[in-house]
């Protein structure tokens, strides 16, 4: 369904992502992991068409997404990393606007907004301005906006950020179920535990390069570690975390 082929992106000749290749089939939940600056956000932006790759392409059903971006985005639901919303609109007004801009018919839109606001426990706050919402409430608004047009592809960039435990659990189950319903899901996160539970496949990036791409279990088997955290540390991080912790305490205690 969605395929990244040799994606590369440079900012002012500094490469951020190099030759990233992977595919996302219906029913797959592909987790994207990597430390800060590994190129995750740049990859997500290229997948959504927000950023044009310097080299390579993103294919949707075999066609370059930039040939028909509007058509591609009709099938796309996207939860960005930052809940950058219009603070003077109410939650309901924002969702209504997004629905209209997505071309959803009015009758369907009204019902969906109310139902989803209710399910995400935002119905009582629907007329309050987004400026007064907590981070978790804004994140829920973003999730509703991404889900309400029933997209075939979902791209989540740190979707659990700011969510309370219950909503986070709901979302984890939801992602699994959406995957089972043949939606293609790209899931970017730092929370390894969730990625391990939710994702069927893994893409691990380091310094803009793909260092691992396979089924979650296969990667873990390959590096012979029991948890994803150990696998991640083995593949990505080059620092001795215990040593750094000791050094931080020394710096704290220094006169």
């Amino acid at each position: 369904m969605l395929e990244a082929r040799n994606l590369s992106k440079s900012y002012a000749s500094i490469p951020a992502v190099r030759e990233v290749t992977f595919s996302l089939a219906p029913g797959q939940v592909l987790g994207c992991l990597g430390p800060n600056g590994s190129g995750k956000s740049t990859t997500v932006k290229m997948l959504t068409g927000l950023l044009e790759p310097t080299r390579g392409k993103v294919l949707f059903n075999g066609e370059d997404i930039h040939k028909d971006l509007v058509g591609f985005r009709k099938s796309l639901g996207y939860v960005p990393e930052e809940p950058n919303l219009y603070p003077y609109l109410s939650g309901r007004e924002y969702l209504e606007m997004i629905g209209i801009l997505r071309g959803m018919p009015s009758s369907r839109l009204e019902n969906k907004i109310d139902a989803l606001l209710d399910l995400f426990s935002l119905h009582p706050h629907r007329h309050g301005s987004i400026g007064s919402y907590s981070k978790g409430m804004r994140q829920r608004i973003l999730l509703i906006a991404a889900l309400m047009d029933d997209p075939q592809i979902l791209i989540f960039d740190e979707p659990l950020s700011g969510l309370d435990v219950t909503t986070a659990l709901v979302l984890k189950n939801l992602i699994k179920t959406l995957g089972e319903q043949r939606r293609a899901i790209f899931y970017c996160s730092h929370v390894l535990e969730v990625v391990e539970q939710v994702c069927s496949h893994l893409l691990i990036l380091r310094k803009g390069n793909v260092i691992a791409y396979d089924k979650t279990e296969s990667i873990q088997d390959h590096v012979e570690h029991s948890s994803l955290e150990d696998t991640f540390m083995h593949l990505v991080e080059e620092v001795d975390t215990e040593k750094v912790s000791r050094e931080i305490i020394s710096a704290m205690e220094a006169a």
Partner: protein
Amino acid sequence: MISSRLLSLRRRWDIWSRKPFPTLVRLFLGRIFRGGGESGQDELDLSMGLVLTLLPLPGAFYSVFLFEKYSTLLQWMQGRTDVDPLSAAFPDEYFFIVFSMVVTGMVAVWRWDSIFPDRRDYANLVPLPLSTLNIFFANLLAILLLTLVLAIDVNAASALLFPLVVSASVNAFSFFVHFFLVHAFVLVLASLFGFFAVFVIVGILMATLPYIVFRRVSLYLRGIIIACFAALLSTSFAVPPQIEQPDSAVRFLPPVWFLGLCQLLRDRASPSLASRGRLALIGSAAVIATASVTYALSYRRCFRRIPETTDVSPPSSAGHLGRIFRTLDRVILTSPFQRAGYRFVMKTLLRSEHHGLVLGGFFGLGVVTASQFLFAAFSGKPLEAGSLPSAEVLAVPLILSYCIILGVRVVFDIPTELRANWVFRLSLAKTGHECVPLARKVMLTFVLPWVFAIALPLYAYLWGWRVGVLQTAVVTVWSLLLAEILLLRFRKIPFTCSYPPFRDSAVVIVLLYILGFFLFVGVTSKLEYWALSDSVLILWLAGIPVVVWYVLTRFQEGRVEVDEELIFEEIPQGGFELLDLGHGT
């Protein structure tokens, strides 16, 4: 029949307005008006209705004030007969043209960052199934609609009232209609010119400069534009007498072109004014066309590049600032609170566009007023060596000092990132804070360096050391007193407290500021001039700050402890208060 037609039209409108393009236009209109800040937190949230109500008021008041000038009865009582209303209206019409250009131009400066779609729009709109052309045209249409509404609104009252006042002495309805049509048309055109002229400047810079350079230049440029507008407004009564003078420099001023257009449309233009009038038409068309082209270019260049500029931040000048701060730490910043607070306040003032703009506005006002005083002091008079400087010349540093200190005090009340003030709430005790010394030191930082580095040597060089030293001493002491007066009841860390609620006393405060200007500048410069002529008067001059200081000290002593507690929220004062006298009995 009519009601069913209306219903059907209403239904069609409802269906149409729920389509993507009108929804986008609505979004952009709201965004331009409401800005990008967190509503109710950092930005002063002015609703569209309030802004549209306030804008036409000054024009309306001024029109009513002019009634005295055009009233036939009053003219007869003053012995003035055969008054030509059109000739009499010449300078007033110039003022209205300047006013309409300045107001719409200032709105463009105020909403500078909201005119173009920004990062938030990109994040929300681009992932949706919308073509970027739709976003482009929706924003363009929103700008055009807003400009038109603004141009009509600013002039709505004055365009009707001023012709009514002018035509009071003429018993012909056709005169009123003709005057009204020409006046309204020219004012709206002048407003459009003012808005789009600012727009062109922004657009050209955005289209030509690298993004980081644009952001840096932007603040200074907006300050210059505000100063130009202030100059235009404050000279609006001095320009009309010079318009008909051959080769006068005022012919280059755009408001003069529009005044020429008025005269041209009324068939009363001299050849030179007629050519100015034609220039107004050509200029307006050129400005609107250029604005459209620069909008398209800068949209293409900036909006589409937003995701690539996300992580780019301008390099800081921490090295130079660090050295300055370390020196100040040793000399004037006497406690850890002052050191940390001073760094925070100065960096916010120097880096926040919003605060910089307001402060720049006050500074611009100071420069314009000071130049008028200088112009008045030297017009036609050469500088005589050895003679004493006039009161106007002595007033110049006082004007700058007054405007800067007042400007700094005003910006202290404008919050920045209120959600970040938890760090101060957490680490500071409510009592025993040093907010006043901190604020005073920041205020004087903006005055004393140039007083000692520029004013003292300049006055000493031109009029001798006696004048230089006295002038420096007066400006220093008066600035200190002004800072103390403005900081009475001050008990917050600058920028960390919510906006003060609008109080009924706000108008009185503005009037006090104006009165304060005349005392601080007018009276002081006169006293200083007399003191320079008669040395005995220097003692009188020295006595004033002593008395003021004594009064201020007594006032401070009378304060109760609760009035000195550090605050982070301005609580509106209730209309009445329950004393709860029965509590505890």
